[in-house]
């Protein structure tokens, strides 16, 4: 540690940091614009000026930029010194010359970094009477609003978009006082991470277009710590609610998982919550004369209980997008033998194999921010930008690990982004991508291999064998020796090598080959360490569901086919979407009774006897386990209208009525989580994921809404002149109110992220233990899976027999493949239409051309898809979009082309 002096007082500081970071960390106010903890320093905006003195006797000093000055031993600086303070005041005055001052109509107003900094720097009066330069703003698509007139040219948008996220279509146009941040022409921003511009922009140039449709200011939102439900990565989110509906989702900082950012599926998927398809009351879809009939809570629960008591064999279909609690309740209800997963056999096998590999072997699954620090990456099969976007963003940073370390060895401090970029230029990697089709990470890859999933598994195994001869040989590795050796060497010499795979190739062999590859590195390395191993699982709770155990949906369908099922309880799943309308209808016909619990209406629900309205992620409490094996808690953001409640509460009520006594003990969210933790050793640490409901600060709970929350007394005035009592929350340390402890809570249950003088997302520095470090008091969540270590046995990589048929290969779409987010209008507008993607040579040999329509069939499901030619696609594969409307998931995993008629 170094000793530095700030305005005459000495402090201990980390000399590898810059003074701006140190000053903010110490709790001082110092305005800045272009610096961001994830982007580093470029010294462009000149706003963080301070005065630095040569020694104790130097009283004049010189002005330096805090963000560009290291916290070196003996540094003496002043924030308050007149020369720096005056410069800061003139810099902001100059930046504000053309700013429209339209705060009252600006969506950023009230959480605007520019507002905060203007006040902080003391620019309180506009002297300029010059005309303001104006721009025509662009239509950037359904998710992001653009108002260029508010821009202060800090360049943070393009630095994030181009350099951090790898986008190409947002640029700084023009020069001098006519800089324009935009696209060549109007059109949706192409990056899956564009929504972060809303938070990266210090003012209102980029705003959330979805929020604008139901706008609420930050101080009028109720929020709670939550977890994104739209893929397996488990990013932390702050959803905001008012008047009983979500208004927006913002990234919630997590020091180990998502850091500051979110992908657009996660940011904008929330609007499914207010979709027309929401189920809000219990229903009997096939009531009198097949007319849907609304049921009272009592009637609905009684009907379900009656089904439970009158049926001989009841099975449950658990859901990879439902919480541990709801799945656990269902598993207890139907028994381990009767518990199935709403997942195709391929997806189910991939998830189980991934979990087994993480538990049995020596490789650790890294958190996202650990992935960022890996310095050699091999991706087997997965198109991460589409299936787990934030993991792709982490790999984009990992690709800079080696080039950055080269720069740092030249003496460039790690925070000096301008110098680092100058040194790095276009150097990236090593990153090796083996995939069936082009991906958006190709641009940073050292080498890209296009292969069928089968050949990817074989190649992974061949590289593993090059590292450790103990790895069993496989017939049919179709990879050249030099390529194999190049990758093997990269994994051997790297500090922190990483192997990545996922369920997106529908191949258990790829999952297992990835494990073998990661494990085999330990044999070749001097330090005997195995590479880290990251899997991208498709759903928010794929890992959690796999830890509970259960068989795939296909086996439930087979059991019904054999007449062994009398009733099915289907949790938060649309079986039509997975198995196809034909098989789903058949299944629901074969089981005498079906109960569906879900938030959204779908064809499966329409065929059930009873449909129960389940709380969404924002309306209930529960735990999810992400692909890393980290259990994270979702806390209810708001209390939904009666009778919506968490699925497990519905199940509990029916079970109690039907005489399942154990359900009595599930008195609250924590009680059932504890029961799950007791029953499943793998989940033992589940209750440690968050602070418990009895946590108090100064005897009080923590408010979900800021103390400036307005209009509570009037919100329901049209229903009753008496203000209703706020709903109680017995399940968490939070209150559905703006009234709560005046003491600042630990970061893991902070809701408002506001500090005096800091209203924008930049207030975060006040809530971190150190800049870029964990939240104060520790990040939430708990890792459930740690590697077993040596000895281990290599996993069996079973390759399918070579076949002349094209291998069906899912094409995952960040926008469209996940069923809940696909209901959000903004996401739906960006989702692809159904297609069948072929290599032109395969198409030619089948006599197919662009736009020809082909039938695809699998397991009783079928679809007609129009052909799209992609020269970059591996020959021998047929790309079938995953999870789109009208394409059952089974087809993407197992579809067979019906040609020639």
């Amino acid at each position: 540690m170094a000793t530095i002096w700030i305005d005459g007082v000495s402090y201990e500081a980390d000399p590898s940091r810059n003074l701006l970071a140190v000053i903010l960390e110490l709790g001082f106010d110092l305005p800045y614009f272009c610096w961001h903890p994830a982007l580093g320093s470029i010294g462009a905006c000149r706003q963080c000026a301070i005065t630095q003195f040569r020694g104790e006797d130097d009283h004049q000093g010189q002005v330096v930029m805090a963000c560009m000055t290291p916290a070196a031993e003996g540094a003496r600086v002043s924030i308050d010194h007149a020369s720096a303070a005056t410069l800061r005041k003139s810099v902001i005055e100059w930046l504000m010359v053309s700013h429209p001052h339209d705060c009252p109509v600006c969506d950023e107003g009230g959480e605007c970094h520019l507002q905060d900094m203007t006040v902080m720097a003391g620019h309180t009066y506009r002297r300029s009477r010059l005309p303001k330069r104006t721009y025509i703003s662009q239509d950037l698509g359904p998710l992001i609003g653009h108002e260029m007139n508010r821009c202060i040219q800090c360049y943070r948008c393009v630095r994030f978009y181009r350099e951090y996220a790898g986008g190409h279509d947002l640029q700084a146009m023009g020069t001098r006082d006519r800089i324009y941040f935009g696209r060549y022409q109007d059109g949706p921003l192409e990056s899956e991470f564009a929504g972060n511009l809303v938070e990266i922009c210090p003012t209102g140039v980029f705003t959330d277009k979805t929020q604008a449709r139901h706008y609420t200011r930050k101080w009028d939102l109720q929020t709670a710590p939550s977890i994104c439900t739209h893929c397996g990565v488990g990013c932390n989110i702050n959803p905001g609610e008012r008047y009983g509906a979500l208004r927006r989702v913002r990234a919630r900082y997590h020091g180990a998982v998502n850091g500051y950012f979110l992908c657009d599926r996660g940011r904008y998927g929330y609007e499914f919550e207010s979709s027309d398809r929401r189920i809000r009351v219990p229903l009997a879809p096939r009531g009198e004369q097949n007319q849907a009939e609304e049921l009272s809570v009592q009637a609905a629960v009684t009907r379900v209980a009656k089904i439970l008591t009158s049926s001989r064999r009841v099975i449950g279909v658990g859901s990879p997008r439902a919480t541990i609690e709801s799945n656990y309740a269902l598993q207890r209800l139907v028994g381990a033998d009767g518990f199935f997963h709403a997942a195709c056999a391929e997806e189910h096998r991939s998830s189980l194999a991934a979990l087994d590999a993480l538990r049995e072997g020596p490789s650790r699954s890294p958190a996202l921010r650990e992935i960022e620090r890996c310095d050699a990456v091999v991706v087997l099969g997965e198109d991460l930008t589409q299936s787990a976007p934030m993991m792709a963003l982490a790999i984009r940073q990992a690709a800079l690990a080696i080039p950055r370390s080269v720069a740092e060895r030249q003496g460039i401090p790690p925070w000096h982004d301008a110098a680092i970029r100058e040194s790095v230029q276009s150097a990236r990697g090593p990153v090796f991508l083996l995939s069936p089709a082009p991906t958006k990470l190709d641009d940073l890859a050292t080498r890209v291999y296009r292969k069928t999933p089968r050949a990817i598994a074989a190649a992974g195994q061949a590289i593993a064998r090059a590292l450790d001869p103990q790895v069993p040989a496989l017939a049919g590795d179709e990879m050249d020796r030099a390529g194999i050796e190049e990758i093997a060497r990269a994994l051997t010499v790297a500090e922190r090598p990483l192997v990545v795979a996922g369920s997106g190739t529908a191949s258990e062999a790829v999952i297992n080959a990835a494990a073998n590859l990661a494990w085999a590195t330990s044999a070749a390395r001097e330090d005997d360490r195995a590479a880290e191993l990251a899997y991208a699982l498709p759903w928010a709770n794929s890992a959690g569901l796999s830890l509970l155990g259960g068989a795939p949906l296909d086996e439930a369908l087979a059991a019904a086919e054999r007449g062994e099922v009398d009733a099915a309880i289907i949790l938060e799943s649309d079986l039509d979407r997975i198995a196809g309308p034909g098989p789903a209808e058949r299944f629901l016909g074969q089981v005498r009774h079906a109960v569906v619990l879900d938030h959204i209406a779908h064809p499966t629900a329409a065929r059930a006897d009873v449909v129960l309205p389940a709380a969404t992620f924002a309306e209930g409490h529960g735990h999810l386990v992400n692909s890393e094996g980290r259990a994270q808690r979702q806390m209810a953001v708001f209390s939904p209208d009666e009778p919506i409640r968490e699925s497990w509460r519905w199940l509990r009520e029916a079970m109690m009525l039907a005489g399942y006594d154990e359900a009595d003990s599930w008195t609250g969210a924590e009680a059932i989580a504890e029961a799950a933790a007791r029953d499943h050793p793998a989940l033992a640490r589940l209750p440690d994921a968050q602070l418990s409901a009895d946590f108090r600060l100064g005897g009080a709970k923590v408010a979900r809404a800021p103390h400036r929350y307005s209009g509570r007394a009037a919100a329901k005035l049209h229903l009753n002149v008496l203000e209703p009592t706020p709903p109680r929350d017995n399940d968490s340390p939070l209150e559905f109110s703006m009234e709560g402890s005046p003491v600042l809570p630990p970061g893991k249950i902070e809701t408002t992220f506001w500090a005096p003088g800091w209203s924008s997302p930049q207030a975060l520095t006040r809530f971190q233990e150190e800049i870029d470090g964990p939240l104060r008091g520790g990040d939430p969540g708990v890792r459930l899976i740690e590697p077993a270590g040596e000895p281990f046995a290599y996993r069996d990589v079973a390759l399918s027999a070579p076949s002349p048929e094209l291998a069906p290969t899912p094409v995952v779409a960040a926008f469209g493949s996940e069923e809940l987010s696909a209901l959000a209008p903004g996401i739906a507008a960006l989702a692809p239409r159904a297609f069948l993607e072929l290599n032109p040579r395969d198409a030619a040999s089948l006599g197919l051309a662009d736009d020809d329509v082909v039938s695809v069939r699998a397991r009783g499901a079928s679809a007609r898809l129009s052909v799209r030619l992609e020269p970059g696609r591996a020959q021998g594969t047929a790309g079938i979009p995953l999870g789109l409307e009208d394409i059952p998931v089974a087809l993407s995993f197992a579809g067979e082309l019906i040609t020639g008629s």
Partner: protein
Amino acid sequence: MAALSSAERAEIDAEIAILPDARSASIEALKTVQRHRRWIDDDALGAVAEYLDLSKHELEAIASFYNLLFRKPVGRHVVLVCDSVSCWILGNEAVKQALEDSLGAAFGEVTRDDRFTALPMQCLGACDRGPALMIDEDLHGPVQPADVSELLRRYP
């Protein structure tokens, strides 16, 4: 004429050959196209972007940065009038006025006969010859307002 001509391609290729990668040739490629076509229209920008494997957004960022890369039509001859402080002190405002009067077109416009476009330029680096202006590749100065129409006559 959207696609690049073979002459344009040859000149761009010659630049790429001496640079580390194709994208480094983007400024020279735009200058090449401008030499052949006077200015860079949207189609030409698209053709260059495709040729260099850049996005149009990236190339436009470059094209719009340099004020001697023209993204709007110009006349056969471009008149650059020095707009810096030395020339201003030495009376360039009268020269600019005389130029607009002689051309019958404002700065940035193309004269009706397609002959000239006048543009303010900061700066020509010819303070010793201010007020200065440049027509095509020729530097002129000091220029008096009365000289302007005679000067223009030399550029048919």
